[in-house]
């Protein structure tokens, strides 16, 4: 196969990837887009075996085929079996192995570079080794945190920021030496330092902020793939890597905005840890708790109900029960909508996936900007397993950790119902004034058990 034909097919695969991302602009075209992307990737993997470059055709074929089979044997069952609630850690894991692969490719490239290599190629290779290693070890730590194989709390040790700073300086100095003088031992040291940095950089990040880190590391891996493409003179790798870099960057920013904080603040927040300010009124105050029957009556006589689902709903596996309830209410002629906060769940758009799994039609899911103006005409806002995303402290209490985060304005609804396990505050660890509001009714207990009781009460009415 000639170079031109090979590059042309690479271009075809690049377009397939662009179409895959373009397909995601609507749920209708998304699945087909993903198929096109997968076909593009398949074509690229197939044709690489037929291309004879300057170095001749590929050898070691039995090894390569064995490795492809082994990778599929791990990847496919994992992707098939993973539960939708565990999606963030799956993405983190896949991202980590991708970063690791990019780093390994760059290390082998480096060993092959020779003296004639351009400085730019050496810089690109060193960049890939460093960032690929950071992405690998950082993703593994995020995976361990999300899978709760280690503590989800920020891990901070005395002098931590100096250790991190020192490691970073070490990486830069070392990288400078490798670029200027070369040397295999130095490269090994560089890879080791980068792996260490990946670990140190994710350890201080708290559980709630981990998705931002995954998205950032995803962008990192994309850039390493683009840099590898530069060294290997491969158009497809450049385009694909850059697309991923762009999507990771956009998502990281969107997420940070949706959480009302800066990306830098998230990453280095644990080092400048302030005392948690705002809304910290911990005294015993009266709340109004109701029975499932009370809740059913409130819902039954409403004209419009907005359901605000949070991660608590997913943990209790109550997606199906809530849909059953919503269907019952719709059958009674009540207008039902779901108000979805952009970061409801554990990653952006996670709640949409979880509700889609329960067959909730996506037309019923309203985004925050869409649903907020309608709360004033809403009779009942039903908050299930969510807390921080409806906490008015985000608007009223400067200094609260969530201050400035856009929230769902459930406080404007005529009645508010909270389904909660306990009075414990949400992930951000701050008190929610709304719980003490006179128009609020609390129903304590496991979300699924509570909803099941509400459903039977509704049927009895």
């Amino acid at each position, binding site marked *: 196969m000639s170079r031109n034909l090979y590059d042309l097919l690479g271009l075809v695969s690049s377009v397939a990837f*662009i179409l*895959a*991302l*373009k397909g*995601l*602009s609507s*749920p*209708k075209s*998304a699945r087909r887009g993903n*198929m096109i*992307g*997968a076909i593009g*990737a398949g074509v*690229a*993997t197939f044709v690489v075996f037929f291309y004879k470059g300057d*170095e001749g*055709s*590929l*050898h070691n074929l039995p*090894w390569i085929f064995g490795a*492809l089979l082994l990778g*599929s044997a791990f*990847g496919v069952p994992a*992707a*098939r079996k993973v539960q939708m609630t565990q999606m963030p850690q799956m993405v983190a894991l*896949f991202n980590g*192995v*991708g970063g690791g*692969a*990019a780093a390994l*490719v760059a*290390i*082998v490239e480096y060993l*092959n570079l020779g003296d004639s290599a351009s400085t730019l190629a050496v810089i690109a290779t060193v960049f890939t080794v460093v960032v690929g290693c950071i992405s690998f070890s950082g993703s593994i730590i995020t995976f361990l945190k999300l899978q709760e194989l280690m503590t989800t709390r920020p891990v901070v040790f005395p002098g931590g920021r100096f250790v991190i700073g020192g490691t970073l300086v070490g990486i830069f100095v070392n990288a400078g030496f490798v670029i200027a003088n070369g040397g295999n031992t130095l490269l090994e040291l560089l890879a080791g330092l980068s792996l260490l940095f990946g670990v140190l950089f994710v350890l201080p990040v708290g559980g709630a902020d981990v998705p931002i880190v995954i998205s950032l590391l*995803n962008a990192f891996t994309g850039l390493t*793939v683009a840099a590898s*493409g*530069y060294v290997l003179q491969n*158009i497809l*790798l*450049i385009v694909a890597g*850059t*697309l*991923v*870099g*762009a*999507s*990771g960057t956009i*998502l990281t920013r969107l997420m940070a905005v949706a959480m009302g904080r800066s990306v830098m603040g998230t990453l280095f927040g644990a080092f400048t840890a302030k005392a948690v300010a705002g809304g910290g009124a911990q005294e015993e105050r009266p709340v109004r708790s109701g029975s499932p029957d009370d809740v059913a009556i409130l819902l039954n006589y409403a004209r419009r109900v907005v359901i605000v689902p949070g991660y608590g709903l997913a943990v209790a596996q109550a997606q199906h029960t809530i849909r059953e309830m919503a269907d019952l209410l719709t059958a009674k002629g009540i207008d039902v909508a779901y108000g*979805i906060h952009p970061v409801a*769940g554990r*990653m952006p*758009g996670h709640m*949409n*996936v979880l509700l*889609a*799994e329960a067959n909730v039609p*996506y*037309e019923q899911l309203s*985004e925050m900007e869409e649903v907020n103006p309608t709360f004033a005409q809403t009779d009942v806002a039903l908050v299930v397993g969510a807390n921080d995303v409806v906490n008015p402290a985000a608007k009223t209490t400067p200094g609260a950790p969530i201050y400035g985060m856009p929230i769902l304005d459930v406080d404007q609804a005529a009645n508010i119902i909270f389904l909660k396990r306990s009075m414990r505050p949400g992930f951000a660890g701050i008190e929610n004034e709304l719980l003490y509001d006179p128009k609020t009714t609390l129903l304590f207990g496991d979300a699924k058990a509570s909803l099941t009781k509400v459903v039977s009460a509704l049927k009895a009415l």
Partner: protein
Amino acid sequence: MSNGLALLAIFTLAVFVGFEVVSKVSTTLHTPLMSGANAIHGIILVGAIIVAGHADGGLQLILGVLAVVLATINMIGGFVVTDRMLEMFKGKK
């Protein structure tokens, strides 16, 4: 135009295409976007196959083959899991 410059031009244009396409993705689909983009960077598999196929030393072969395994997990796993998610997004019947 030199080869290096041509690659740089491709990179620059791809940045703009990437931002343009991704900013149009519906917020409903941000999780599949993350896993789909994840699958796309699994294309490093092509690079892994190239370096494994040209490796002559034992160490190079080991590293190259390991890269192929990891990249395959990334790419195939990523596309399968994204497909599983998107399959669930059905509208009203």
